């Protein structure tokens, strides 16, 4: 009779073997079930409920040690204007560009591709992009630049066979200003240099934006096609027209709901999860982005929930991008709304609590996005409560 006494190595990292599937009596309720129970109970603390325009969206991903990240979300597919939170899309595009250039540099160094100077290098780099795949609203706009200003973003040195790529000092400085202190002028500089098409195409390639929905009543995903440049900015002459698509929260008192810096919380949380997962694997781009988000948390633009003192927080924030977005005039709303994307680390008290996380194959870290909260300090503890209680009750599998 065939014996299954195990002698060979365990299943590949991140892939569970049947023997590792958790005790069925201990993992009966999903994270979503807890959020579905907790959110309505706390909704009154998040401001007046005036229908869809006041929906406070939230999405939570608990990072798995493998592939089975736990997810919960409310109003998570609603496309909402979120102001400065969307600057992370430019950051992502920048690191993506650097990675693609680094990959090309490796090919040059291994002599599978020929490029003897920066001009040839960037020509070859550009040839690999399909920027015409950007949505029509961007490609059809004659006033926007159709490709990145490569030499204003990357420096390439070491020809012919020790080619090295990095951000130019100027671009890096602007990107740091964009993320760490949310400087609008620097954000505009980054976005103009990258260009809307490159940002849009890379978001679509990574399934963070569904290009088929851009001109529908329900766009889906992360959309950045506005520069943040203000009249007082040093680069005001470079400003680009905004390409606006429909949102659920930025209509003012009219039916004109278009905005240029929008997202659904689900895709934004997944974006932060990707940074978290990549950072834990030591991926250079993810680590670079995580470092910027971490510096933001360590600086003046800290996470709104991390500033809450009225209730104990059961977690600490490791990285953040906040958003304070000006809505179109609406007397039923505050002039600006708050949003943020955060990476958190749960405060695991002791070995028995650690075992609960281990039994669920979770790391104790999470990626979260919440948005569209009226800009009132008194409302932020409600968000903290949702996060506290949803995750705590899930880990402890409290009765529902």
């Amino acid at each position, binding site marked *: 009779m065939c014996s299954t006494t*195990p002698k060979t190595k365990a299943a590949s990292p991140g892939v569970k073997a049947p*023997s590792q*599937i958790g*005790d*069925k009596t201990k993992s009966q309720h999903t994270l979503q079930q807890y959020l579905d129970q907790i959110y309505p109970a706390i909704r009154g603390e998040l401001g007046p409920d005036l229908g869809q325009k006041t929906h406070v969206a939230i999405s939570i991903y608990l990072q798995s040690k493998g592939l089975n990240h736990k997810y919960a979300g409310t109003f998570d597919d609603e496309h909402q204007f979120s102001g400065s939170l969307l600057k992370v899309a430019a950051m992502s595009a920048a690191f993506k560009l650097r990675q693609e250039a680094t990959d090309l540099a490796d090919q040059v160094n291994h002599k599978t591709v020929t490029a003897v100077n920066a001009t040839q290098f960037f020509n070859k780099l550009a040839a690999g992009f399909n920027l015409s795949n950007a949505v029509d609203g961007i490609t059809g706009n004659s006033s926007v630049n159709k490709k990145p200003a490569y030499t204003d973003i990357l420096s390439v040195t070491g020809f012919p066979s020790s080619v090295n790529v990095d951000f130019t000092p100027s671009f890096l400085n602007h990107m740091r200003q964009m993320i760490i202190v949310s400087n609008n002028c620097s954000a505009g500089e980054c976005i103009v240099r990258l260009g809307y098409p490159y940002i849009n195409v890379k978001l679509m390639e990574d399934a963070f934006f569904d290009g088929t929905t851009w001109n529908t009543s329900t766009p889906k995903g992360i959309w950045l096609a506005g520069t943040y440049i203000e009249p007082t900015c040093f680069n005001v002459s470079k400003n680009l027209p905004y390409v606006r698509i429909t949102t659920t929260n930025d209509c003012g008192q009219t039916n004109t709901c278009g905005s240029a810096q929008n997202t659904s919380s689900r895709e934004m949380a997944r974006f932060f999860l990707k940074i978290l997962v990549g950072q834990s694997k030591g991926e250079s781009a993810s680590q670079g982005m995580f470092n910027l988000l971490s510096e933001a948390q360590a600086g003046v633009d800290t996470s709104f929930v991390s500033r809450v003192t009225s209730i104990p927080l059961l977690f600490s924030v490791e990285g953040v991008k906040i958003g304070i977005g000006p809505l179109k005039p609406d007397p039923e709303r505050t002039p600006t709304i708050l949003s943020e994307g955060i990476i958190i680390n749960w405060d695991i008290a002791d070995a028995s609590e650690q075992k609960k996380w281990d039994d669920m194959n979770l790391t104790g870290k999470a990626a979260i996005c919440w948005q569209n909260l009226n800009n009132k300090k008194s409302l932020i503890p409600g968000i903290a409560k949702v996060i506290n209680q949803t995750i705590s009750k899930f880990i402890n599998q409290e009765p529902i």
Partner: protein
Amino acid sequence: MPVRKTEGRIPDGFQAGDLGESFSSADNKCCIVSYITAPLCINRENNYVVFVMDAGLAASVQSFEWTFTIDGGTPDSATTDFGQTTYTPSAEGNLTVNVRLLDAGANEQANLSLTQQVSTLNGELEALITEAANNPGAGIGNPDVLRELVNDHNPYYMNVPLQNPETGDGFSQYLFSTVVDGVLETKQDKRNYLLNQVASSINDAETDFVSAIGPGLGVAKVRMLLVPMLLPPSSLAFTELPDTNAENAAADEQLRQQIAAMSEENKIDLFNRIRFPKSNILLCGKLLEAFRDKYFSGVNFDDVLQKMSGTMADWISLNYNKGPLHRN
């Protein structure tokens, strides 16, 4: 004899909950035990047993009326002559199991209920099975066997403690694989048949006890003679068997005859500890640990599995299935 000897007592030192998911009457005269602990799985068979520990109640009970209802829907009913039945839920929801113990005049003498959630097959396992089916390579094993273990028994094999806890997951891996072997070799119908043979030999001597306890029994194929030999209170002297088949079989039978000579209560207790998957798997784990301590004292299970090309694990498994063997 409606209340059979095998359902007349809970094993010494045990509670009903040690055998499976259970509910006891307020006066503790009777209880119901489910083989599988909820959540149950749709379209998967489960067994229920009623124990009547009070002699007076046992004398009055003549039949058992079972009713199975999911979320207040149409009940499934059945009447049995003794306190055991099977049920396969056909829908998701909350299953209420009710059994009335009736006297000769169909008057209710006792009433027991158990509520269990019924849900679908374990999604993680189904994803693994699908992935294995779609990709070339060795795969993950027999899907039907894995479905039984993960859907029915995983609270049991995941919660067998070692006498001396160790780091690493070698013990849990070894226990899992041993239970897989048991389920793979003997399908549920055959397992029920073999257990019924033992029950018959105890209840009404219709079968021969010594023969009936020969095979490995229950989900983990536990050989009854190992239990009193290796586990406290060690009521059977440790005896090594010859490793050649004919001599082994003869020596094995002699040991089984020693068990047959034990008190009826001891035999009933051994049977019930092996009968129920929860206690059967616990026994399996205890026996593996006992063999490890006997032959490879101080070696943790990670090393038992991995060092010396797994020969330590092979020796333990061989003894579990045919031993204890004389080691040359």
